[in-house]
């Protein structure tokens, strides 16, 4: 048998109170796409950080092409041919694309040459990118391209990708896969971390499953069903959200020619959005990131005020109302960004629960906070939504992404909303938590609330929506019944591929 490109033997890393990796061993062959599967907290991130030289293992050994590989820092790893695309992009917003790329290279050529190389690589792999643009202005998909091109310019032997598709549209995903396949055919090995099993089945040649820091199995993803892989990953049978048939309810929320200026320089203006939402339905809204999703959520939640009659709820004009006044009427929202928008990172869960639930749960009295009641409410959310944390006195920052997401969604749902608006409910959340969140949204609709779910994850929208609409450049397409929509129809609704060179890679 050939020498593996990378062999991990008995890697162990413990942090105070938790063993992140325990005796992890597996091989990556040259020119294969190897999936690393596992829930949040399974130790995937620690493992790849070890390979990338950010974390030193307590025990165990790595071999790269048969030679001992102990990178002291990421530079050493890069020099040895290991490159990594991070899940939360390691980009610098205030700098342009070429500068960001130069920062990820060992001996970068002058800016002008980088610009030329970027153009060349982006043509080669169908990843259009302008090297002079400021990264802060780019969409999530474009930012990922910056990271990928940064890696590709170093001609890596092993490319590590940490949940690369969580923020991409289907078109962007197919382009990414085409790029990765081209790379594999050119001999680059790829370590692909994800919990989207269908993607792994479509893309990967081998898979290693981690659970609680240990390797619990390996499989050939092309020959294993998604369900079997999921159960291997979770360690128990997986719950699939159940969609009940619901009668059509009364109209509860109406948007009439809702328009709003872009709230900041990099924002999108909302243009003439007409929409009616009924009790007991889940309305899914798709679209490429940066087409007005954040602004629509803000206009609905009250962060952006509009003319009063642009937004009607149960026959009342509410476009001018502030968030707390809307909460009183039962219009609740959970924005996309968990840290810093949905939750204040350094405040406790009790304080975070108080921040949005104060009106509907009566958590103050004569201007004084009723702490015991607030604590009880936070505890109820933690219990009701299986948030894994020692208790409500812990800060929001101490929770993993999936747990915090369960908390911020649970916090709104347990206030019994009449209309619930949620943006990217399962972004960066592991499979079992995502299933629980989707089920909670469906249950909410079953109880007669209207749910507006904005997401980049079309599989998710198809799974839970009754009707589907798409945002494109701040305009909303007319909603259509979700049942029976084909991928092509959805693509058309999303307004094509948005500056993507689909033709280049489809052949």
């Amino acid at each position: 048998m050939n020498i593996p490109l990378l062999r991990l033997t008995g890697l162990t890393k413990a942090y105070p109170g938790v063993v992140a990796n325990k005796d992890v061993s597996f091989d990556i062959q040259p020119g294969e796409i190897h999936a690393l599967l596992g829930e949040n907290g399974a130790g995937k991130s620690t493992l790849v950080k070890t390979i990338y030289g950010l974390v030193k293992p307590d025990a165990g050994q790595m071999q790269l092409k048969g030679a001992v590989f102990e990178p002291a820092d990421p530079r050493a790893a890069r020099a040895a041919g290991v490159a990594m695309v991070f899940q939360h992009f390691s980009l610098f917003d205030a700098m342009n694309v070429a500068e960001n790329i130069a920062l990820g290279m060992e001996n970068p050529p002058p800016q002008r040459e980088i610009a030329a190389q970027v153009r060349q690589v982006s043509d080669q792999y169908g990843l259009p990118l302008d090297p002079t643009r400021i990264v802060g202005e780019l969409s999530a998909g474009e930012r990922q391209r910056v990271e990928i091109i940064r890696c590709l310019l170093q001609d890596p032997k092993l490319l590590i990708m940490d949940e690369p598709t969580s923020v991409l549209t289907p078109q962007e995903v197919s382009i990414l896969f085409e790029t990765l396949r081209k790379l594999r055919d050119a001999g680059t090995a790829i370590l692909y971390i994800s919990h989207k099993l269908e993607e792994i089945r479509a893309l990967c040649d081998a898979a290693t499953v981690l659970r609680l820091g240990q390797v619990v199995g390996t499989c050939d993803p092309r020959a294993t069903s998604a369900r079997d892989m999921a159960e291997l990953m979770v360690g128990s049978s997986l719950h699939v959200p159940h969609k009940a048939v619901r009668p059509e309810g009364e109209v509860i929320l109406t948007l009439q020619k809702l328009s709003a200026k872009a709230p900041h320089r990099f924002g999108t203006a909302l243009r003439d959005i007409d929409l009616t939402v009924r009790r007991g339905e889940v309305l899914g809204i798709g679209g490429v990131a940066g087409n007005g999703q954040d602004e629509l959520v803000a206009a609905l939640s009250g962060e952006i005020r509009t003319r009063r009659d642009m937004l009607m709820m149960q026959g009342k004009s509410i476009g001018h109302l502030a968030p707390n006044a809307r909460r009183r009427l039962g219009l609740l929202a959970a924005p996309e960004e968990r840290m810093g928008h949905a939750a204040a990172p350094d405040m406790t869960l009790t304080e975070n629960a108080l921040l949005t639930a104060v009106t509907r749960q009566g958590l103050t009295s004569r201007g004084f906070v009723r702490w015991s009641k607030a604590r009880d409410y936070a505890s109820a959310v933690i219990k009701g939504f299986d948030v894994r944390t020692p208790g409500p006195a812990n800060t929001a920052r101490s929770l993993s992404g999936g747990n915090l997401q369960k908390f911020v969604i649970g916090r709104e749902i347990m206030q019994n909303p009449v209309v619930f608006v949620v943006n990217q409910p399962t972004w960066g959340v592991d499979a079992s938590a995502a299933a629980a969140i989707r089920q909670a949204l469906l249950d909410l609709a079953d109880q007669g609330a209207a749910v507006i779910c904005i997401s980049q994850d079309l599989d998710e929208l198809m799974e839970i929506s009754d009707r589907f609409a798409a945002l494109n450049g701040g305009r909303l397409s007319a909603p259509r019944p979700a049942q029976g929509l084909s991928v092509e129809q959805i693509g058309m609704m999303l307004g094509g591929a948005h500056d993507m060179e689909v033709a280049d890679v489809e052949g």
Partner: protein
Amino acid sequence: MDLSSINPILLLASLMVAATPILLAAIGELVVERAGVLNLGVEGMMITGAVCGFIVAISTGSPWLGFAGAALGGALLALIFGVLTQVLLSNQVATGLALTLFGLGLAALLGQGYVGIKAPPVAKFPIPLLSDLPVIGPVLFRHDPIVYLGITIIAATSAFLRYSRAGLILRAVGENHEAAHALGYHVIRVRLLAIMFGGACAGLGGAYLGLVRVPQWTEGVTAGAGWIALAIVVFASWRPWRLLLGAYLFGGVTVLQLNLQAAGVALPVSYLSMAPYLATILVLVMMRSGRAPGSLGQSFHASR
């Protein structure tokens, strides 16, 4: 009142001299802040630099060694701040304020035996040929070397931040320290170096006050110049050339109001003394456009 006594050429020339201390202190702080550190101890580092420079100049008789000593003294004081905030992770605002108070006290203590002594003179260095030009010559090219040094540091810093690899890394560290760390850059090392550069520049600025502007040691010789330097960095949107403009504006109005006082303008002196501060802040606020470095003032701890 006799405004004709004000000579515009002399006014412009003395503007450059008046602006130099703040200019030096501010460019140092600009580099520190671009690396993501907020050091509010500029005033303390300036006055420590001033007293160190003065002592070295008196004991060696050379003002140039004095300036070198001032830079060293400022950098050492800044290193205390660096170790406290970067290694021991103390709060930057509190530590910076403490550094100012500490520096003021330390300078008063060190300078006790030097009150009333006159500093060795700093010779002017007219640039050959250029200084003979009419108008421009006396305004721009007949100064002491430290004035030229100040402008050179501005130009060098601007080029460093914009074009050099090290400057790019420094900005990266200030913009997003987590990402810079993830890419394998040494956040704390970069910041410590920037902090020491900032201290050295503040020391030079302080010494310029003690050796050229006043030329003798008096307690509290900096008189708030460090705070003005801090303000100018923010209002200049963290850009070196704008900072030069801000410092000259401040220096210009300072010199002008002194001239107006001498000419006997019928305005209370307090208003005239206020004018430089008001004018500088007003103009720079109107021009303000940039945003602060993304990680400014946050402690970095490589925990993951």
